[in-house]
């Protein structure tokens, strides 16, 4: 019952994308995400979508699996569409009560929807093709320059990989404790919110106890193996750029070039562009503050 969370889940497959160096994938994803916010016309979106479809195809991840993770962000997408349709100004199409639907509003809603959709698919593609360990190794390596400013990069990466590693373990543990308490008659399906919250105690207490116990055990095991942080450590699996990575960098450069070219060439609807940037800001501020 707890296994349906795809976010941050690795999909095992042997593909060109899976074999890429994690650093390439992190930078690539970042560039792709930025590119989505660089331009404002449909032609560019179509191009970005085609590009992403091509990469997803290469990754050998079944589309069904990709979309399973979308369910959790469905609310955000729906909210965005509604917000844009009803709360933007421009040429009025329909008007009822306090709502007005404008031509620009619909256009913005569609653009935002595509943009967010591509953003989510793009970022989940990275987590689906990269193991959490590779991801943290990649991040550690990319953030290494921060060491000059005394940022404990290695320690932070280690903490992150331990945290990630423990998610499935604690998930399994929760599942087991839940079953054990259900078997003892715990009522987890009651509709009364107070009873439900109260019924979480028999699950949370053992879960916390177990998390602390595991943390203690792990600390002891690490100490017993003389773990002392980042200084002078070598890796069992050293990261290295392969020919595939060079190809990926070239393709990425080509993509950036193409996007900029398309964005500059098809600069249609200048007033719409301004409107959308304005709407984008209006959208970003409430969503960010809502977090």
């Amino acid at each position, binding site marked *: 019952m707890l296994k349906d969370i795809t976010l941050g889940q690795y999909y095992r497959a042997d593909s060109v994308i899976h074999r890429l160096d994690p650093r390439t994938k992190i930078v690539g994803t970042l560039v792709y995400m930025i590119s989505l916010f660089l331009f404002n016309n449909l032609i560019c979106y179509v191009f970005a979508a085609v590009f992403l479809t091509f990469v997803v195809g290469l990754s050998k991840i079944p589309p069904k699996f990709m979309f399973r993770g979308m369910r959790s962000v469905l609310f955000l997408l729906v909210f965005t569409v509604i917000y844009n349709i009803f709360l933007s100004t421009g040429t009025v199409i329909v008007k009822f009560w306090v709502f007005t639907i404008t031509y620009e509003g619909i256009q913005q809603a569609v653009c935002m929807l595509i943009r967010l959709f591509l953003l989510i698919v793009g970022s989940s593609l990275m987590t689906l093709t990269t193991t959490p360990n590779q991801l943290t190794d990649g991040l550690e390596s990319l953030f290494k320059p921060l060491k000059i400013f005394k940022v404990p990069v290695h320690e932070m990466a280690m903490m992150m990989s331990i945290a990630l590693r423990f998610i499935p373990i604690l998930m399994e543990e929760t599942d087991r404790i839940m079953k*054990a308490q*259900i*078997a*003892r*008659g715990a009522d987890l399906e009651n509709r009364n919110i107070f009873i439900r919250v109260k019924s979480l105690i028999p699950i949370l207490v053992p879960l916390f106890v177990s998390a602390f116990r595991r943390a203690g055990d792990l600390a002891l095991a690490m100490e017993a193996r003389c773990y002392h942080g980042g200084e002078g450590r070598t890796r069992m699996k050293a990261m290295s750029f392969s020919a595939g990575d060079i190809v990926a960098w070239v393709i990425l450069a080509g993509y950036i070039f193409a996007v900029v070219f398309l964005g500059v060439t098809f600069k249609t609807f200048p007033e719409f562009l301004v409107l959308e940037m304005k709407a984008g800001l209006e959208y970003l501020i409430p969503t960010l503050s809502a977090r």
Partner: protein
Amino acid sequence: MDIEVRNLTYEYDSGTPQAVRAVDDVSLTIPGGQFVGIVGHTGSGKSTLVQLIDGLLKPTAGSVYLDGEDIASRKFDRKHMRSLIGIVFQYPEYQLFETTILKDVCFGPLNMGLKQEEAVNAATDALLRLGIPRESFGASPFEISGGQKRRVAIAGVLAMNPKILILDEPTAGLDPGGREEVLGLLKSLNESGLTIILVSHSMEDVAKYVDRILVMNEGKIFMDGNGKEVFSHVEQLEEIGLAAPEVAYLMKAVHDAGIPVATNITTAEEACGEILRALKN
């Protein structure tokens, strides 16, 4: 209370490429009052099977009947079933959560709708039965020893007064003394009429106490019979990564050395008698 399992199948991650068939078309009947041992190596589907019997997992296909009633049916009273079937999971001490031992053991009975007083009585009985002295009832379940925690957790299930008791590796991590204690308790519970289903990978435990052994392999029932029947197929057991009790090997060696003893012996006591008998002749 009879359990009947018909064509039961369960798949983890059903519908994904990682799908694993943990239980594969299993059918069996466990009559009331039987002491059944389910053995099999890790991943053979034994834990999954018992969770399906208790309705904690929904089968991918097939059904489970309790006294002829389908437990998946809408009319079936699942809350009542929870009081009929008690299940003790692996390392049950990790489910303790209350501030005192007595309160923790009362959790199940109270959920069953018993009054506070009745629940305390049931809990007291169960705790005393598991050898927890009255003076420690007020102690925190997090401060007692590992073996005691295990017994408190088992008491928590027993206090619900089930008719069927399922235990998943109840002796894992216990010292030999603790093991004998727990298994002896199960035997006496069985003698007082409870159906006991013991999931274990320890052939010794199973051979000594149970009436019937179910050997599972890759989600299927590989063998079904009493100890003597099952352990006479040592080669087949070894093929699926299991072993007969040490005694069975000893008797085989004695037999091969030319002393005419029976080889279908499963416990040390029996072996002793059999060797003495053979030597006297």
